[in-house]
Structures are given as C-alpha cells and as structure tokens.
C-alpha cells in the first residue's frame, strides 16, 4: 500500500478529523456560496417582517430590521473566515522565520532578542492590542486582523523555534553543515519541511481562536463595522432583544460554536494523523 493510500485510510478512520472537516467545510462552503447566492439580500430591510421566528420563508427567522438571518450568517462567515485566515497568515509569515532564525542562532543575541520580544507580545492579549489599535485608528475589520495577527506571531515563533532546536541536533542537519550549507539554506531545506505538520496543526488551532477573537471584537464594536454583517455584531444587536426574539441570538452563536468546534476537532484529528505516536500514547 502506498503512503498516500495509508494516509487517506488513516484520515477516514479518524472520527474527529472527519467530523471536524465536514463541519468546517459546511461554513467555508456557506461563505463561498454567499458570493453567488443568498436566500435574501442582506442589505434589504423589511421592517413589517422583523424579528420573525424561523419559518418556511426565513429558515432561521429575521432580525430587528427584517433581514434574513440565514443570509446574514452566510455573509458573516466570510468576515469571520477572512479575518481569521489572514491573521494566521500574518502570524505564520512573521513568526515562522523568526522562530527559524532564533533556532539557527541558538543562544545568540538574535535568539535572545526574538524570544524576549515574543514574551512581550504575549503580555498583550489580542483584545488589548485591538483596543490600542482602535483607540488610535478607529474600529475596522482590518484592525481586527492586525490585532489577532500580531497575537499569532509569538505563538508560531515559539512553536517553530522549539521544534527547530531539536532538529538542529539531527545527523542529517550535521551532514548538511559538513557539506557546506549555510544556516538559511539548512533552515529552508531541512528544518522547515520537518516542522510543516506542526505548523498545519497549530494553524488550524489559531484559525479557530481567530474566529472566536473576531467574534468577541466585533461584539464589543472593535471589529467589522455595519453594514458588513459579522457574527459578533449580530450577537451584539440581538442582546437587547433576547427575550423577544431569542432566535436572533441563538443562530449566530451556534454558527460560531460549530465552526470553532469543527476546526478544533480537525486540529486534533490532523495531529493524530501526522503523529500516530501521540495517539497511541494518549489512548
């Protein structure tokens, strides 16, 4: 059996991976479909039909402006996913090279500066970074991306450095050094490919944390601004009407919960798939 087939078989036999993947794909799919079609235009207000409970015409009901909640959730998925994905890209794009550099020059001044810088960023929870940025530039989805992205940098830098440090002691790295390869080439050709699996798993986790952070930021008004629909914003709008129209709060919250749950399960599943030793040890 080829390695690919074995991997696929392992993947299909991994319950959390399959459930997580399906859940995540549902929401990514909803976001993609929303570009082409939504049940009802999210800009269209229909005051006479506001706060309608779920019905045939509106599967998940309507909000306080009579907008279709299912459509809002589909379009809101775009915001959540875009913010979280770009934040992961920022975190990886800056954190991974920093971690590789710190590991390649272990114990040097560069290593020390990078790691202390990491500690410093760690002292600023993403919410505080967002507050700082918003106080200066005003609230927007872009500022939410930057805040969550900055928060992601030390996560990836630490992970990469830790994994790379142990790789640098391996024989094949020694062989590469003997062959005259420099630190940058060794990092790119031998270290990076061997930390990719770890990065994918952590990327999934940071993706799900990003969705939660985006929801929290837009809930307090520091994220995407109206009229752009976002899940956090929908929850903020529903708050004062929760006793009259609980469905307005329940469905966007379920969307966040299920997306995050799906991504977390997928992360767990991927970790087991990439490193069967952990799975055996955990059972």
């Amino acid at each position: 059996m080829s390695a690919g087939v074995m991997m696929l078989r392992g993947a299909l036999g991994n319950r959390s991976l399959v459930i997580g993947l399906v859940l995540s794909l549902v929401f990514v799919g909803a976001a993609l479909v929303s570009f082409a079609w939504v049940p009802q235009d999210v800009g269209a207000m229909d005051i006479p039909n506001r706060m309608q409970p779920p019905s045939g015409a509106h599967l998940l009901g309507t909000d306080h402006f009579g907008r279709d909640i299912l459509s809002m959730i589909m379009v809101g998925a775009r915001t959540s996913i875009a913010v979280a994905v770009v934040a992961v890209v920022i975190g990886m794009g800056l954190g991974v090279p920093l971690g590789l550099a710190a590991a390649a020059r272990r114990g040097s001044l560069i290593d020390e500066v990078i790691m202390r810088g990491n500690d410093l960023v760690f002292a600023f929870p993403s919410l505080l970074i967002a507050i700082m940025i918003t106080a200066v530039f005003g609230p927007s989805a872009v500022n939410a991306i930057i805040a969550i992205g900055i928060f992601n940098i030390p996560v990836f830098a630490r992970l990469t450095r830790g994994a790379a440090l142990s790789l640098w002691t391996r024989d094949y790295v020694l062989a590469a050094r003997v062959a005259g390869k420099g630190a940058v080439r060794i990092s790119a050709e031998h270290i990076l490919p061997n930390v990719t699996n770890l990065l994918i798993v952590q990327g999934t986790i940071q993706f799900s944390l990003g969705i939660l952070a985006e929801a929290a930021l837009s809930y307090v008004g520091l994220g995407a601004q109206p009229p752009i629909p976002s899940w956090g914003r929908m929850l903020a709008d529903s708050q004062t009407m929760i006793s009259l129209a609980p469905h307005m709060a329940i469905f966007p919250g379920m969307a966040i919960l299920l997306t995050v749950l799906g991504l977390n399960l997928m992360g767990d599943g991927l970790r087991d798939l990439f490193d069967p030793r952990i799975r055996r040890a955990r059972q």
Partner: protein
Amino acid sequence: MLRYVLKRLVSLVISLAVASLVIFLAIEVVPGDPAAYMLGLNAQPDTLAALRDQLGLNGTIPARYLSWIGGMLTGDFGTSYTYRTPVADMIGERMWISLPLALYALSLSTLIAFPAGVWAASRRGSAVDMGVMGVTQLGVAIPNFWFAMLMVLVFAINLRWFSAGGFAGWEQGFLAGMKSLTLPAIALALPQASILTRVMRSSLLDTLSEDFIRTARAKGLTRRQVLWRHALRNAMIPVLTIIGMQFSFLLAGAIIIENVFFLPGLGRLVFQAISARDLIVVESVLMLLVFAVIVVNFAVDVAYAAVDPRLRGRR
C-alpha cells in the same frame, strides 16, 4: 534561588519599560496631535492650545514619556479629559468590579477543573473520561459572551434567579455583590475551566506513566494512594503555570463579559473612553492590564522555581 529571582526581576523591569514605551508611542505619538484628535475637527485654536498645555504635550517626547511614567509610579495617572476627574480614582473605583470578577472566575475554573481532570484521568478511556473530554471540547469552542447571553435568557429573564445585569454595589453587602458577579464569573470561567481540565488530565496521565509511580505501586500502595500521594503533587507544575497564564486572560476577558452584564468595570471604562476619545484613560487602563499580566507571569515563574529547583538553571 536569590540569583534566579534577581535575574527574573531585571527582566521584569525591562519588560515593563518596553511595554510602557510601546503603549506610550502607539497612543500618543503615532496619530499626530492627541489634543486635535480628542477635540475633533471643529476645535477652536485657543481650546486646542489649552488642552495641549493641560496634557503636557508641549514638552519633547522623552520628557513626556518620563513624566507619564513618573506620574504612574507615584499614583498620578493624569486627569480624564471627558470626566475631568483623576484617572487613578476612576480606575480604582472600577477595579473593585473587574478584579473580584477575574478572581471569582479563576476560583470557579480551578474548582471545576481540578476534580474533573482527576476524575477523567483516573478513569481513563471510560465513559466518564469521554464525557468530560466532550464537555471540555464544547467549553473551548463556545464564545463565552454568547454563553453569558444564554445564561441571562435562562437564569435572569426566564427563571428570575439573578438580575440580567448591573452591579448591586459592595455597600449592599458581600453576598449581594458576589451574586451580581456570579453569572459573569461562570461565563468567564467556562472556557478556562475546560482548558484547565484538559491540562490537569493530561499532566496527571503523564505522571501516572512514570517509573516512580510503578515503584510506588510495586511496593504495595493502592491506585488511590498512588494518585493522591505521589501523582497529584507532581502533576501540579504545568497546571500552576496555566492557572497563572489564565489570570491575564481572565482580566482581559472580563472586559468583554462586563459588556454583556452592563457591569461598570474596567471594560466599560475603556470602551467608553475609546468612543469619547479619552486617550489618557485608554492609555492608563492598557498599562495597568499589561502590568498585571507581566507581574503575574513573573510571580508564577518564581513560584515555579521555588517548587522545582531544576527550573532555576534554565532559560
């Protein structure tokens, strides 16, 4: 041990200095003239000049930074532009909601996670273990402010056990104050308790597979005796670190949860200050929160080294 503490103390001071510099530069220098920003587009030149003077903006940047830091060290956080009251008083007042809320949530999270983690680890692979792990999976994925809203719907609006928001005030008595903080603390504690349960469980499982546990079992101790006498103590180290880290997340998270329950804490203060462009307040609250995070992490590191001498040499 003393050397280690001194070394950590030096890095604590450096971290605080750099963090304060970052906050200062971000808030005061990057956007141009804070006075113009605070007053908006239609500001009169003389009002602007007066405000600049009041804010001490006429000095050089290093001088302004030093006077800000000097003021903070002596308890003078400046005067709020919108409220015209000392920022230190405003923060002091609201601290009495945010800090008890974070501590309440931390206690809840520890009280839930401890038994749940031990229970799951001691019945590894059983239905109990699966159930606990399933619940924590949900607890990590649920947005806590949404969970808070659902609790308001059920326990405040439908069952009327708690009020839907607001703070009774400590002058109404300790219990009344704690009652207003109960739903917020549960919401805040839920994700942290889930994380802590998982850490507790896996740390205990790791310890239980160590050689000294096998030795203890071989010398005739029962599973229960081994668990309580040997395994738990050794499993505590990672758990303590996470508890320390969680405190900072709880303080920051409290800012969001306060919004759900209309609690007049630091969170409400900072969001009102942002919309009122009251940058002095934003700056001070940020510095205070970052200060708390850095100091708590320092305390955890030191406590950690006191428990485990091996850690003193590292780093």
